[in-house]
């Protein structure tokens, strides 16, 4: 007790000096009432959509088998061949796992943060899904269904970079990303082959292309937008698109492979 109080006394003068120095910020007047954030509401009567297909032209690169042999528990957990995921060309040259999002045209609109949780699982010593989109502040849950310890390490540059290990049977982690960032590469410090990418946007207009390369962004207010695509190996593309009231715009992208 005595020790505690004597420390307190030592600290007080310092505290005073510090507050004395801090003269720059304005004196705390009556705190201005925060204006209630008004969220943009999409009018269902005029909402439209943009959809299309992303094609890979040329000979699709053969997907490599991931060598997990250094961690036998991963080999066992994966059951079957684990395939590398950086370029996946599916049905009719469709390019899977491309992140598609509205890059501009939504300025000045505030979108509510969804309460739905986005789950990233570590299973078979790979991240699922591989490409992930979330809204700013949206709850993200990270789980480990493997019998080994994993480490999730989002190498963010705009958001806070962190890494955290998750042992077998550990409870889920709950995180969020507080700023827009395209894309945050995620690795596992323990298993060098594990990669994922997270796109963080302040609006809900993003998606990931399906197995056949198709995508749809729905419930979009009419307007003119820049639609952007991001592929981890093949880079980014952009196109302008105008969505008429109630319209269904179609727009396609092609990534050229080395033939």
């Amino acid at each position, binding site marked *: 007790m005595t020790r505690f109080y004597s*420390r307190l006394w030592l600290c007080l003068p310092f505290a005073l000096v510090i507050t004395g120095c801090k003269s720059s910020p304005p004196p705390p007047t009556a705190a201005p009432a925060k204006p209630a954030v008004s969220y943009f509401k999409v009018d269902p009567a005029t909402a439209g959509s943009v959809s299309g297909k992303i094609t890979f032209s040329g000979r699709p690169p053969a997907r490599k088998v991931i060598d997990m*042999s*250094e*961690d*036998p528990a*991963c080999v066992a957990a994966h059951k079957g061949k684990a395939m590398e995921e950086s370029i996946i060309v599916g049905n009719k040259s469709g390019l899977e796992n491309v992140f598609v999002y509205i890059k501009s045209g939504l300025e000045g609109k505030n979108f509510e943060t969804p309460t739905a949780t986005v789950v990233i699982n570590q299973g078979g010593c790979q991240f699922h899904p591989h490409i992930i989109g979330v809204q700013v502040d949206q709850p993200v849950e990270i789980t480990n269904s493997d019998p*080994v*310890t*994993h*480490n999730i*390490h989002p190498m963010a540059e705009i958001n*806070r*970079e*962190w*890494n*955290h*290990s998750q*042992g*077998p049977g550990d409870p889920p*982690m*709950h*995180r969020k990303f507080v700023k827009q960032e395209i894309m945050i590469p995620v690795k*596992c*410090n*323990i*298993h*060098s082959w594990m990669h994922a990418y997270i796109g963080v946007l302040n609006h809900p207009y993003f998606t990931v292309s399906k197995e056949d390369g198709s995508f749809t962004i729905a419930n979009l207010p009419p307007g003119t937008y820049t639609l952007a695509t991001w592929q981890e190996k093949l880079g980014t593309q952009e196109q302008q698109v105008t969505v008429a009231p109630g319209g269904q715009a179609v727009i396609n992208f092609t990534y050229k492979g080395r033939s």
Partner: protein
Amino acid sequence: MVLLFTAGCRAKVSESPIGPSVQLHAPLGLPPVPIPPDNPPTEATIALGKRLFYDIRLSKDNTLACATCHDPEHDFSDPHPISLGVGGAKGIRNAPTLINVAYQSSQFWDGRATSLEIQAASPIADPLEMNQTHKVSVSKLAKDPVYRKMFTDAFGSKDVTLGRVERSLASFERTILSGDSAFDRFQYGGQPTALTPAQARGLALFINPIKGNCAACHTITPQYALFTDGKFHNIGIGVNDDGTLKDAGRYHETTVKSDTGAFKTPTLRNIANTAPYMHDGSLQTLEQVVSFYAGQGNSNPYIDREIKTIHLDGQERSDLVEFLKSLTGKLPPNLEEEKSHP
């Protein structure tokens, strides 16, 4: 008045052990055992300390002994992640092994006790542990004729005092020594085949600063290995989702910000037998511990820089685990509870 009286009384009773002191034999791989000048171990104090260590009368409801949480069956550690006190009260930390505590310059995960003598009394009165006032402990022990004889043999009179209890417990604890493991025979005993090839590779990784980097904190010297630097480090255990720490650790003692979440480097002797691991018992296996390090800890503002240089692939992780298993030495005989004869 009462207080003054007891204080006066205590001063009159000598707390110095009588009789010849015994030499504590340090096994291969350990330095000489440090002995405080005012408490040289004797046969009688060690025997008394041992009886006290296994005595449930030191707890409020006669259910817990020191050995309940520092269980000889688990090399003097506790298989519960967080130890349970009297009435199931849940503490906050994992009970560390008492192996080689004689060498530690501070006791507890946060180092709040500076000697074994000082440490010994605190679990008895701790409400989350044995929860019994020292006055009650002293009077319970004084009723037992066996103790009256043992205190007489050890200190020259039958008086039971807290100081005598502390000194005896400390002397017994100083005998819980582990060395002469496969590692010691390899490193200090000139037996190159004492370690398996995997264990020998693991040792090389253990001391390599850009691989395991373990020896940066779990010290190995040319003459002996205590596997601890006696210092406090934040390695990222007990980090919340927002990057704050569940237990401030060493910061409780120093109130130095950078000590937040720092805990004393524990010994790794007999580590294969003392699961679960870490101050919160959060890691269950050595595989998990080594993977945790391979992940470079959990990020938080106070994490130790040495954690960031660790790089271990799968084969290396498995070699390190094998090496950790080579640190199990045989404990001296006579540490187990004496079965009393009716």
